[in-house]
Structures are given as structure tokens and as C-alpha cells.
């Protein structure tokens, strides 16, 4: 019993979070910044934050994750971190020569009130930023929101600090990627190409966090959205934000600065959300949906009809990030499954509203986000109403083992398996992968537990 102290009695908690279903803003900002070509993320705070964020991202991607830190000690904490950041900018441009430094704050620098806008302005005025290079920033205090909010803030920072409106509209659509995997971003580019839609996708961590083994370490891998592309987003005819929590703030920023109209759709996970994405992209880019995409859809629906008996009525518990949970829950319902318990540590009313809408099809389901929406609560709910499947990040493996539940890893972080960064979960082919993974664990369970006389060769 790995979680031997977890009891079924659910008591309201106010002070203590146990086994959180979220982490802090800066790691999201760091991940987003890696999706700009030639960018070195920089953590403005003490060293530990940067070390923890790099370690977690490295464990999730099994790839180099480069980032620098302001290395605060007590002095900087008392007198302010300006001197540290200015020194860091100097050191970074001399030693690591990035095109861009993307600075994010931490709870330490936020608590002492360091103003990143003012410090980066000063760096520019003091001539510390070489010609043609950039320092951008995002405010990401850890005592607000979650890692998802941090991602959203850095992506919004990219939009507001790079986008330029030249007055000449371009025939292109901005696609703002919510927090998703490099494989998902690669898939979005493939789908857009297949549809003939001209897009600028940002951020884009494909070819950065899934770089090939070449025998040579490339400090700034070939992937990532480029500065000219980011600048051009201000001239795009439309913005499509994928995810109301992690992507929409960037779309709003673009609209405010450069009057680019936008629409927010759910992250295209599963059948219905992908349908809506394809229609939105078709409309925004003014392109027809090609037969090849309709065929991809047909293959996903084909598998869903072929295998429906294995999904029907199965109870599911899931936890993770809101922009992923919303379409994923909807997909489970499309499959005929029963989402029962859902938690997301990330706070925000949008999640509540969307979940309520979606879960009208699943009366009695528990869901909670924000404070104390943690995995301890999820586990307690499961003890009260057991489920057939658990979906969530690696930390779910403890619940899965204790309660003997088939487990599909989905979300962030996944520290003990590979695949997430190579095989997409978005789009129709991503839907196929999710279906395959769910079927895999459910059928393995059936095979291992069936009575010998009931053991089936063909399923």
C-alpha cells in the first residue's frame, strides 16, 4: 500500500494540499520559451527554481533543457534582483549567445517586487542587449494560478512583445498552441499543410524537445517559431487560440495590440473537439476541408464503432490540465465511457463552466479545480466510487497500483514512460492513439483476469 494513509472519508481541507494536481507558473513559462527558435529561458530568482524546472522538463522530454538563472542569494532578496539580472544578461550574451532571452519571474522576485519590464528596459538603455537580439519577459508569480497560467503568460508575452502591425495584412492565420507536446505541435502543422492553410504556430517546441541524436549537441536546435514569424503575427488575418486557459491570453494580447480578430476553440483532442478545430481553421484560413482529412476522421470513427463494446459504460477518473481535460472528457463521453471523478489543480471559472456543460451527459460526476483540488481528493473519491480506468500524469501510478486500476498516462509530467513527445494526441490521428492506449490497458486487464474458460483469442 503505497498511499496507505488515504482514507475514504472526505473532509473539507482549507490549509493543506496533499499530492497536488498542478505545479507552479515558471515551469510553464520555461517550456513555452523553448518554443521560440534561438531562445534561452531565464529564471529570475534563486537557483533552485531553475534547477527544479529544468529537471522536471528534462525528465519529461528526455532531452536537453537549457535555461539560466539569476542565482539570487540573500543580498539580492533584500536589495532587489536588478543587479543580478543585468549581470546575467551580460553573461548570457557573451557565453551562450542566444537570439532571445525569455525572462520569467519567480515567487521570490515577485514578492520583493522586481519589475521585469523596467529591468529589461534598463538593460536595453545600458546597451546590454546586442543589436538584433531580444530580451522578453513574463510575470509568473508562483502564488497565482499554476504551470498552465505560466505557460499562458509567456505565450501572451511573445505576442505582445514581438507582434508588429505593418498595416499590410498577410494571408495567414495565427495558431496559438495551448500547453501540448512537441508531437502535437508537429501534428498541427501537418494538418494545416494538408488543408492548405497558411499558419504561424506559436510556441512550437517540435524539433526543439524531440531533437535527433547526431553525436553533436546543438545548443539552439533547428525548431521553434522564429522572430520574423512572431513579428508577422500582428499582420495575420485571424488568430485561433487552442485552449481557453493556456492559449487565449495570447490571442487577446494580439487583438489588443494589433487588432487581429480571434476565436478560441478547445484543444483538438478527440473527435468532437477536432471537428470544431478543423471547421474553425477552414473558416479562418478560407480553405476547404480536403478529403484526406475527412478520411482521417472516418478512420477514427471506424475504430470507435468497431470497438464500442469495450468502452461502453466504463467508469473513468482523470486529472490534469484544464485545456486537456475539457476535450478529453468530451471524447470519453463520445466513446460511451463514463467520466466520474475529475480534478485539475489549475484554478479558473472557465474550467467549471465548460465541465458543467460537458458533464450534463454524465449526471453525478464529481469535478473540482483550483485550491485543494488535489490527487488526495481524487483518490478519496475513487475509494467511494471505484473506476475502471485512471487517466493522468505519472503521479497517478501510485493510485493505480493501490486501487488496482488500469492506467493511461496523459498530461504533464510523464516521468516514467516515453511516447508523449513523439506521438501526437491531437487531431484524428491523436484520437486514434488515445483510443489505442485505452483499449490496450482495458483489454490487457480482461486478458489477465478472465477465467480460463472465458479467455478469448479474438477480441
Amino acid at each position, binding site marked *: *500500500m*503505497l*498511499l*496507505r*494513509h488515504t*482514507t475514504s472519508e472526505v*473532509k473539507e481541507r482549507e*490549509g*493543506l*494540499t*496533499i*499530492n*497536488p494536481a*498542478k*505545479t*507552479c*507558473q515558471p515551469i510553464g513559462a520555461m517550456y513555452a520559451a523553448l518554443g521560440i527558435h534561438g531562445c534561452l529561458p531565464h529564471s529570475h*530568482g*534563486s*537557483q*533552485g*527554481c531553475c*534547477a*527544479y524546472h*529544468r*529537471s522536471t522538463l528534462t*525528465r519529461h522530454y528526455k*532531452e*536537453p*533543457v537549457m*535555461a*539560466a*538563472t*539569476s*542565482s*539570487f*542569494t*540573500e543580498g539580492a*532578496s533584500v536589495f532587489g534582483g536588478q543587479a543580478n539580472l543585468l549581470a*546575467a544578461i551580460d*553573461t548570457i550574451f*557573451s*557565453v551562450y549567445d542566444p537570439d532571445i532571452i525569455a525572462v520569467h519571474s519567480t*515567487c*521570490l522576485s515577485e*514578492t520583493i517586487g522586481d519589475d521585469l519590464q523596467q529591468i529589461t528596459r534598463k538593460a536595453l538603455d545600458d546597451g546590454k542587449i546586442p543589436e538584433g537580439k531580444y530580451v522578453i519577459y513574463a510575470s509568473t*508569480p*508562483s*502564488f*497565482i494560478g499554476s504551470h498552465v497560467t505560466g505557460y499562458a503568460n509567456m505565450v501572451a508575452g511573445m505576442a505582445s512583445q514581438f507582434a508588429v502591425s505593418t498595416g499590410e495584412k498577410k494571408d495567414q492565420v495565427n495558431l496559438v498552441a495551448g500547453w501540448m507536446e512537441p508531437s502535437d505541435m508537429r501534428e498541427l502543422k501537418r494538418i494545416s499543410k494538408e488543408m492548405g492553410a497558411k499558419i504561424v504556430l506559436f510556441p512550437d517546441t517540435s524539433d526543439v524537445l524531440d*531533437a535527433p*541524436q*547526431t*553525436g*553533436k*549537441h546543438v545548443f539552439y536546435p533547428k525548431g521553434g517559431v522564429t522572430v520574423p514569424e512572431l513579428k508577422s503575427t500582428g499582420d495575420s488575418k485571424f488568430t485561433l487560440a487552442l485552449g481557453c486557459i493556456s492559449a487565449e491570453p495570447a490571442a487577446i494580447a494580439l487583438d489588443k495590440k494589433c487588432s487581429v480578430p480571434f476565436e478560441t476553440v478547445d484543444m483538438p483532442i478527440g473527435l468532437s473537439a477536432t471537428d470544431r478545430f478543423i471547421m474553425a481553421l477552414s473558416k479562418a484560413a478560407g480553405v476547404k476541408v480536403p478529403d484526406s482529412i475527412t478520411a482521417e476522421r472516418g478512420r477514427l470513427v471506424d475504430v470507435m464503432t468497431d470497438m464500442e463494446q469495450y468502452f461502453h459504460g466504463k467508469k473513468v477518473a482523470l486529472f490534469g490540465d484544464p485545456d486537456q481535460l475539457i476535450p478529453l472528457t468530451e471524447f470519453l463521453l463520445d466513446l460511451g465511457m463514463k467520466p466520474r471523478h475529475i480534478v485539475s489543480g489549475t484554478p479558473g471559472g472557465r474550467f467549471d463552466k465548460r465541465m458543467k456543460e460537458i458533464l450534463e451527459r454524465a449526471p453525478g460526476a464529481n469535478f473540482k479545480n483550483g*485550491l*485543494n483540488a488535489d490527487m*488526495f481528493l481524487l483518490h478519496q473519491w475513487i475509494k467511494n466510487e471505484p473506476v475502471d480506468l485512471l487517466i493522468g500524469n505519472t503521479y497517478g501510478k*501510485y493510485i493505480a497500483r493501490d486501487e488496482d486500476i488500469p492506467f493511461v498516462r496523459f498530461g504533464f509530467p510523464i516521468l516514467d514512460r516515453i511516447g508523449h513527445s513523439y506521438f501526437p494526441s491531437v487531431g484524428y490521428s491523436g484520437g486514434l492513439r488515445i483510443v489505442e492506449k485505452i483499449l490496450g490497458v482495458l483489454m490487457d486487464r480482461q486478458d489477465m483476469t478472465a477465467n480460463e474458460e472465458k479467455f478469448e483469442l479474438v477480441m
Partner: protein
Amino acid sequence: MEANKTYPDPSAIREELVQKYPAKVAKKRTKSIIINDPETVPEVQANVRTVPGIITQRGCSYAGCKGVVLGPTRDIVNITHGPIGCSFYSWLTRRNQTKPETDADANFITYCFSTDMQEENIVFGGEKKLKVAIQEAYDLFHPKSIAIFSTCPVGLIGDDVHAAAREMKEKLGDCNVFGFSCEGYRGVSQSAGHHIANNGVFKHMVGRNNEKKEGKFRLNLLGEYNIGGDAFEIERIFKKCGITLVSSFSGNSTVGQLENAHMADLNVIMCHRSINYMGEMMETKYGIPWMKINFVGAESSAKSLRRIAQYFGDEGLKAKVEEVIAEELPKVKAVIDEIRPRTEGKTAMLFVGGSRAHHYQDLFTELGMTTVAAGYEFAHRDDYEGREVLPGIKIDADSKNIEELKVEADPELYKPRKSEAELEALKAEGLEINGYEGMMKQMMKKSLVVDDISHYESEKLIEIYKPDIFCAGIKEKYVVQKMGVPLKQLHSYDYGGPYTGFEGAVNFYRDIDRMVNNPVWKLIKAPWETAAGENDGVLEATYAEA
């Protein structure tokens, strides 16, 4: 260094490592990059601030306190007071294995507790929320102890975690509650957190239970955190030798063990950096001498056992230890004989931790491999140069902020385990008591010693030396491997291990053999990318480009 390999002049390498830095940074880094001479050990600049903007291996004080020292004790509820991140990142990521004796025993290691501070707690203070959290933890789990860890903002807004702990301890009655001011900005690395943790454990836990455990040879194992089951192997060996392990700080340990530690007759220290404070304080207060030992490496394990037996001065124990060594070593030798022809002459670099970069050199030596460069992530000068330099180390502002406990002999419990004369006699026999000679005396002349190595410097070193294996942590792993060099993680062991003791040595030999001789390293270039005849020279071809 190997006669058949030639390397550039080490001073030229040092130049090369710093030439890209701004002048002031270069000047500072030069003092931390040392060409070793084991005879007249040169001074290393260590335990100083990392230059802002440098990509460093280091973490923070919180990581050292909660993550390293307190984390592995299974029945403490460790509550992180702060925003959610710190507690999330230190949740199960250090591989501290533990084995409760029964299903009913407490084990909180798989849990993560946080006050998840919100903006309003930063503005109006978080003490109230902390006290609620302590109460909730108590009501849910009824633990013997609750420890509180301060994160960066807690120190800044002035939450008094110690007062909150005292108040709750009083209120709860049967639960020992105590706090740690281990905010991430304290000190210059994890090391500050180790010191803070030692002080707290010494003040709040050690000495609370005077029960005397049975056994003739009773010791504490300090600075062993049971990564990958290391402590399990040492426990096995001690048991076999008839040595009683009173407590282990803090791998596979319990609150009860730590509270009883002062009843042991010897402290043996594995990781000097993280816990030497505890050895010293226990000597002063209770009269227990300490000894630096090392159970990484088969020969080192044998040597450490012999030293323990020598300390106790018991002929029966000496004979038993020899019997155990005689039983264990042949199994190890059989594996060495098989593997060594494949590892002999290869080179390694180690840039990890505060003692590991020293200890693991023993295992490489047993494999016939040479350590060409090594350094610590968060050590102090004494870990490099030996404890004799301690009086000469100037205390800087970053260390002054860490409490130095005033420890005095306990009026009732102080009892010198060995008389002055006995200690002198042991020292005369060559037994090093209360001492540590550091890493550099063991390393070859002209090998490089680099403190707090940066990403840039490690990449340069790899280009220059082309080592066969590089040892560091997760943040470095894939960078180095992208360069075609296998990286062995010496914090998590790449989820292998244990590597201590005799069985651990065998595990390590097999892992290193697998890594340095893995066929995949020769498959990096596609056949169409490799010119005819260069198929087996992939690494050389790559480095020639650099």
C-alpha cells in the same frame, strides 16, 4: 594519466575554459578550476556564489534541507510552506527507498504536503494557513512528527514558522512539530540547506529517547540517503558482521531511530558534505567520535568495515569482518575479472554532489578506469583539500546567515566513548578519527578539479578530453549524450543501483560496462553519412569537426 593518451597542457585547458566569459567572470572562475597536485594540494575556490546567468548544476537550500536530509525519513509529515512548486518538485524525485516493517507502519514518503500559498497569503501573511495545515495533517494522519519547510517568499514576508511550530506542538501534545528556515535564497547552493537541516534534526529530534539498544557494536550511519537501495545493502553487511545500526541519517530511517541516535558508540559518515555538522555536534554533546567511511566500491567497503572493527578494538568483530570480506570479495572479483578487460584504460569525469564525485572514483579505479577531471556541485574547500584547511576558511556573508549552534557537553548524557589516550592510540595505528583527507589527495597529478562546473565548461571539457563516460545529473544527461558520450547519473543512478557495498559494486561494474561498450554509440551516424572506412570512428569524426 594513461601513458598512451596525451592531453593538452592543463593550464591551456584552464585558459580555454574561461576565455569566453566576461573578464570579471573569467577571473572568478579561474580560481575554481584547479590543476591537481596530490602532494601539495592547491587551494580551490569553493562554496561561493554562482555568477548570475551561468547555467549551473546547483539547486537551492530548500532542496538540500527538505529534499536531501529530511525527505528520506518515512514517518515524518514534511509540509512545505510556500507556493505549490517547491513541494511538487521534491515529491518522490530523489529515489529515497524505504521499507516499513509492517503494513500498519507509517510511511509518508509517497505523499506531498504543501500550504499552496496564494497571493493573499503573500500579502497578509501565511502563518494562519500554515497552522490550519498542521492541524489538518494531524487530524488526518496522527504522525509522530511534522516538519515545516520555508520557501523563498516565506522568509521575505516574515512568517515565523518556528513560532507556528511551537504553538502547534503545544496544542497537539503528542506530535513533535518543528520548522526549518531553509528558504531557497539562503547560502549559495543546497549545502546551506544541509547545514540548516542538521541543526534542526539535532535540536528537535536527537536525544529524545534514551533507550539503549542491544548489541555490542552500535553505530549510526550518517549521510546515507538510500538512493536506489544503497542503505539496504549496507544494512545487510552490518547485520552479517554483527554490527548494530542504531540509526541512519536519513535513508530508510524513522523518527524513533533519529531520536535514539545519541545512544550509539560511533558515527560513521558517508557523505561528508551533507552531514559532517551532525558528527561534530554529537561528539561535543554526547562524546561520540565520528569517522569518515565509504561504502562505494568493494575495496572501500572492505576498508571501511576493517576501520569500524579497529575502532571497536574487538578481536571477535575483527575476525567476523574478515570472514565477511572473504566471503563477499570473491563474488566481486569474478565480475571484475570478466569486465575489466573491456573497461581498462577508459576515462571518466565526475561532476556531482558533495561527496559522490570522490566516492565513485573508487569504483572506476576498480574497473581500471582513470578519472581525468572531477568536481563537486556544492562542496566546500574541506571536501576537496581535507579538513585541515577548516581553520583557514573565511566565513563569507552567505554562510554567516546560517545559524551556528552553540553545542555543549550534555550534563547527563555526555560520556566519551573512547578516552583521549585510546583515541590517540587508534590514531597512532593510522585510524583517521574525526578527520577527512578530501578528494584531491586521491586524484592524480595534473587531473583537473573544477568546482561548480558550468554547462559551458563541461561541454568544453568533453570536447578536449573525449571521456568514455561522464557522470552528472539529470539536467546534464541528454546534453552530454547528444555529444555521443554516455552519461551516468550519480544522483538517481539512472534508476539502477544500489551501488554501495559488495553487491552494489557488482551492479555498478555491469552498468558501466554496458554503457561504455554499448553498440548504440557506434550507430549514431547513418551509414550514408559516414565516409567509407570511418564506420568505427564515429566519436573521433564528430570531435574533429568541433
